[in-house]
């Protein structure tokens, strides 16, 4: 196991990718390895990119990778795509936009499927970020699935959240709704050469103008950037330079105002929650499945012989012995 830790520390892609896979598959020994990796983390700047399907997240990441590489930074990318609820299969296609970096040893791109997670990420993402961190990646970019309004798990894992929007997706009511628009540290209006771009910008401005000042951490009001057509390389590259500079500025802001800790705290809470689920809830469920009890309970329940609350209380009484 120490051999594995050493290899990951040295940046070995095969070992890292295999470990991510074992975590996705829920293998116990992978968690044991994570125990050794966890204390070594804390180096990377983790950037979350979210937005609706087709907003251009993968293309922007491709551009950001180029921009960070020019500055001599190493980059990890975790790209999440949805798992089919019917077959369990998935098409992981984010990589298509990033393949020009495939041969750059300073870039490691790994695709993950959601496998039933609903928050816009895959369950293994938190650990995969740690692994890339231990590998020494300066920057870790996390791409969520194409999101709607509610998939906000990305804030639990990133230092900087970028919300990508495109013109023509709705009126000003959309902009005052709760959810995804609240989590942005930076807004990007992508495909801004399209009609409706300045209207979208105005709506976002109005939304931010109405937000309480206390919602801007140490005075960081999310800037609204624009990004032009990716097929016109000059403008695109320039937009990306500005974007990567703003990302750096945000990170410096977090450090300067001692805010990095609050983000790490948030992630720690989520990780502990997950780990408890994994160590407490899942073994109990597995036991009930294995001895057939769960099926019996479901049977009883569907015949209305009992109710789910009583059953859950019975199980809790049996397994939570303390007190």
């Amino acid at each position, binding site marked *: 196991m120490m051999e594995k830790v050493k290899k990951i520390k040295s940046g070995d*892609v*095969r070992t890292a*990718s*295999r470990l*991510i*896979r074992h975590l*996705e*598959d*829920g*293998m*116990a020994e992978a968690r044991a390895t994570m125990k050794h990796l966890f204390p070594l983390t804390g180096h990377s700047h983790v950037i979350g990119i979210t937005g609706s399907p087709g907003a251009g997240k993968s293309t922007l990441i491709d551009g950001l990778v180029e921009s960070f590489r020019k500055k001599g930074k190493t980059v990890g990318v975790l790209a999440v795509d949805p*798992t*089919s609820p019917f*077959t*369990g*299969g*998935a*098409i*992981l*296609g984010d*990589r*298509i936009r990033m*393949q020009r970096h*495939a*041969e750059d040893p300073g870039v*490691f*791109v*790994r*695709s993950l*499927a959601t*496998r039933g997670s609903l928050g816009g990420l895959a369950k293994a993402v938190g650990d995969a970020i740690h692994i890339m961190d231990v590998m020494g990646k300066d920057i870790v970019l996390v791409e969520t699935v194409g999101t709607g309004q509610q998939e906000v798990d990305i804030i639990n894992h990133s230092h900087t959240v970028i919300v990508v929007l495109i013109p023509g997706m709705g009126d000003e009511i959309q902009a005052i709704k709760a959810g995804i628009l609240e989590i942005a540290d930076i807004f990007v209006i992508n495909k801004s050469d399209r009609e409706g771009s300045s209207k979208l910008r105005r709506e976002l401005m109005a939304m931010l103008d109405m937000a309480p000042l206390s919602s801007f951490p140490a005075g960081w009001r999310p800037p609204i950037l624009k990004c032009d057509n990716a097929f016109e390389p000059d403008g695109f590259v320039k937009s990306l330079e500005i974007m990567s500079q703003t990302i750096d500025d945000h990170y410096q802001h977090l450090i300067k105002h001692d805010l990095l800790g609050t983000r790490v705290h948030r992630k720690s809470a989520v990780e502990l929650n997950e780990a408890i689920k994994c160590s407490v809830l*899942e073994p109990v*469920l*597995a036991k009930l499945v294995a001895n057939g009890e769960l099926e019996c309970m479901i049977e009883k329940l569907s015949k209305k012989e009992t109710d789910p609350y009583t059953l859950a209380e019975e199980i809790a009484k049996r397994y939570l012995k303390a007190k």
Partner: protein
Amino acid sequence: MSEKKIRIMVAKPGLDGHDRGARVLARCFRDAGFEVIYTGCHQTPEQIASAAIQEDVDVVGLSCLSGAHRYLFPAVAKLLKEQGADDITVVGGGIIPEQDFQLLYDAGLKAIFVPGATLDSIVEWVKTNIKPRD
């Protein structure tokens, strides 16, 4: 809870841009419950090998309809081997004349699918021959 999934990469090496078949296959693998990484057209063997390692796939499925399979398929297999990843199974498909089969098998390919191969038979081959790794 643990569940092992087959990860498979569908890739099109070289200058051939006919990706309908590759896309249909990708969809079909998805429906079979696999996790499919699709990398698009116009890939060099180096890009494909490197992506396969980064993604830790069990299988790389190469599609080529242009006639360059004699060069491109063995090149991918060789690069994987050089990088210590010859445990990744390489298979190929496309318009491939029978007299080229042996050359490709010798290069390390484990199966070749030509026009007329049904989707079911390809999925079945993967399910029979590939076990998600430990």
